[in-house]
């Protein structure tokens, strides 16, 4: 075991898979000799060579097309989109092409591609760096969307994502890259995609969260505990497909739930979680399922992040509304 930050765990997962499978290719803008703008690919080109880990021209759409083309020759591409706000440049390659590749060819071809990309607020990035666009991806049939919140999860989920034979969008929250360390096994291990984890057990309220909001939810749960409320926190880890069983089992136990996301209320995936709970567990509910989400504006100018981004106080406030309904 080693103490790792999330970014170190990601590098470790990439190194593991580059070693395990010669078809794995890592490429993107500045991921080679530079080791990535966040050092996620640090040392990989040196260890595996320019043939395996290489830079691309500055064009996201081209990177997406490159990945798709490489799959036809048996490669397993792990491209990087430098910031997920740049998704719009490559939206066709992702949603219009690779997500549909297996279906449109009736299984003749498939796209074992893992797109890594940083996102998320709280670190005062410039425009179009921090936007939470996972909701767009979750609406596209053919993709899986993974968002880890801990170093341990990041490594196991990324290895699973790379080994998956269908396209996976792997979103890395920038605020979580180096915010804390955790014990991470040095050997390889996997965490199944599509499986949530109960990060804290409780009996009065279920908080469903993902990304940076998992940590705000855990903080909120601790404070609520002091006031006598036992709160269960579920980290979705994969936001598409949703782990319905874990969510419903928890809600049937606690009879109350809130869904917490950093994205705007009209975006993200909270509405989907609420709808699934409504479909499957409405008779267990003692109160409506409320959402914690950002205002429905464009992502804030960096100085306005503290007043705009949802935090543990918003979670406590919404939790109390549901607990006292």
């Amino acid at each position, binding site marked *: 075991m080693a103490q790792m930050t999330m970014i170190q765990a990601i590098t470790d997962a990439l190194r593991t898979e580059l070693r395990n499978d010669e078809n794995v290719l890592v490429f993107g803008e500045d991921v080679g000799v530079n080791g990535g703008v966040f050092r996620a690919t640090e040392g990989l080109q040196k260890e595996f060579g320019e043939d395996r880990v290489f830079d691309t021209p500055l064009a996201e759409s081209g990177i997406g097309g490159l990945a*798709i083309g490489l799959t*036809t020759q048996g490669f397993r591409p792990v491209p990087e989109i430098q910031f997920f706000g740049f998704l719009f440049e490559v939206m*066709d390659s992702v949603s219009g092409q690779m997500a549909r590749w297996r279906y*449109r*060819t*009736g299984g003749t071809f498939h796209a074992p591609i893992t797109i890594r990309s940083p996102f998320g607020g709280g670190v005062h990035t410039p425009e179009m760096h921090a936007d939470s666009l996972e909701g767009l991806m979750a609406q596209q049939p053919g993709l899986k969307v993974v968002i880890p919140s801990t170093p341990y999860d990041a490594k196991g989920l990324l290895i699973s994502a790379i080994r998956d034979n269908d396209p996976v969008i792997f979103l890395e929250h920038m605020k979580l890259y180096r915010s804390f360390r955790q014990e991470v096994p040095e050997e390889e291990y996997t965490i199944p995609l599509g499986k949530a984890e109960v990060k804290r057990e409780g009996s009065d309220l279920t908080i469903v969260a993902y990304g940076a909001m998992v940590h705000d939810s855990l903080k909120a749960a601790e404070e609520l505990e002091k006031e006598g409320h036992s709160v269960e926190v579920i980290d979705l880890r994969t936001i598409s497909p949703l782990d319905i069983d874990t969510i419903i089992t928890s809600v049937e136990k606690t009879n109350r739930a809130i869904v917490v996301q950093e994205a705007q209320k009209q975006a993200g995936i909270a509405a989907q979680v609420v709808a699934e709970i409504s479909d499957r567990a409405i008779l267990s509910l003692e109160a409506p399922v409320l959402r914690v989400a950002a205002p429905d504006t464009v992502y804030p100018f960096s100085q306005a992040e503290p007043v705009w981004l949802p935090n543990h106080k918003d979670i406590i406030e919404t939790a109390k509304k549901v607990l006292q309904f």
Partner: protein
Amino acid sequence: MASKTKKTQFDAVKTLENIESQFEMVQILNEKGEIVEDALVPDLSDEQLTELMRRMVYTRILDQRSISLNRQGRLGFYAPTAGQEASQLASHFALEKEDFILPGYRDVPQIIWHGLPLYKAFLFSRGHFVGNQIPEGVNVIPPQIIIGAQYVQAAGVALGFKKRGKQAVAVTYTGDGGSSQGDFYEGINFAGAYGAPAIFIVQNNQFAISTPRDKQTAATTIAQKAIAAGIPGVLVDGMDPLAVYKVVKEARARAVNGEGPTLIETMCYRYGPHTMAGDDPTRYRTSDTDSEWEKKDPLVRFRNYLVNKGIWNEEKENEVIEQAKEDIKVAIKKADDTPKQKVTDLISNMYEELPNNLQEQYEIYKEKESK
């Protein structure tokens, strides 16, 4: 007051003119079927020449029958190909089996001649997933509907060949309108930056639906767009099978020799509408233009050339026509006999392992389908 204007040393207009003058159209056969460039005549045997003619005639019949079957409602989406036989089939004729084709929506003939069964091409037209199930060993993807996407993907296929050390090329096609897309530029630029073995063909058939070529760009040729990627660009008479074959063959040789990609503009014309979905070409082009291009018909000039060589005659041509009609009849029947699609089929084709939402929906539709 007279000002002393210093005359600039730099003449931007001249630079442009110099560039444009470098893109002269390659032609080997003129409209009468006479050789106009002896030195460029490709090394093709009599059998190869007649086989190319056979494919072009066959494809002209395929176009006529497809239009007719579409009108009868026995085909769906169809983009006519008449007029582009030299551009489509002579370019394909220069390829090898191991080469990988990324066609646009109009480039069904190339993937048929590369090995896609005709009935599958008809199922593609109708909208059936079996049409896109490409047989093992046939290196093509289904026709690409998103104009330009095939270009960035071709750069990836080509890089894949290079990394595997294979002596093969990725070949992709778009139209004149498609050369305005971002993916067009990104595709040729990526292939250039990686020195990847790709051949990018722009079939300039003069119109993107109703928009004429000169409304796409102020560039006098599309071939010169290769300069932006730092790769060779060639303008070729797209109604001349020998010229198209020759330039593609050379581009292929350069590519497999590790010398990188080439952009080829084939100057051609489509006689029919853009697609059979209600486009009416009389709204945007004149019958004068149509008849001017009909004089350049690739079949007419190639027929004259082969007849003069004594290796083609009416009897041979009629044999091809009858064969094509018979094959088409059999293929349509086979398409008719293909089982209808079920929602459970569509679900099964989504992922290797179905996620829980689809597992649940699969059971729901399986139940419905069993009633």
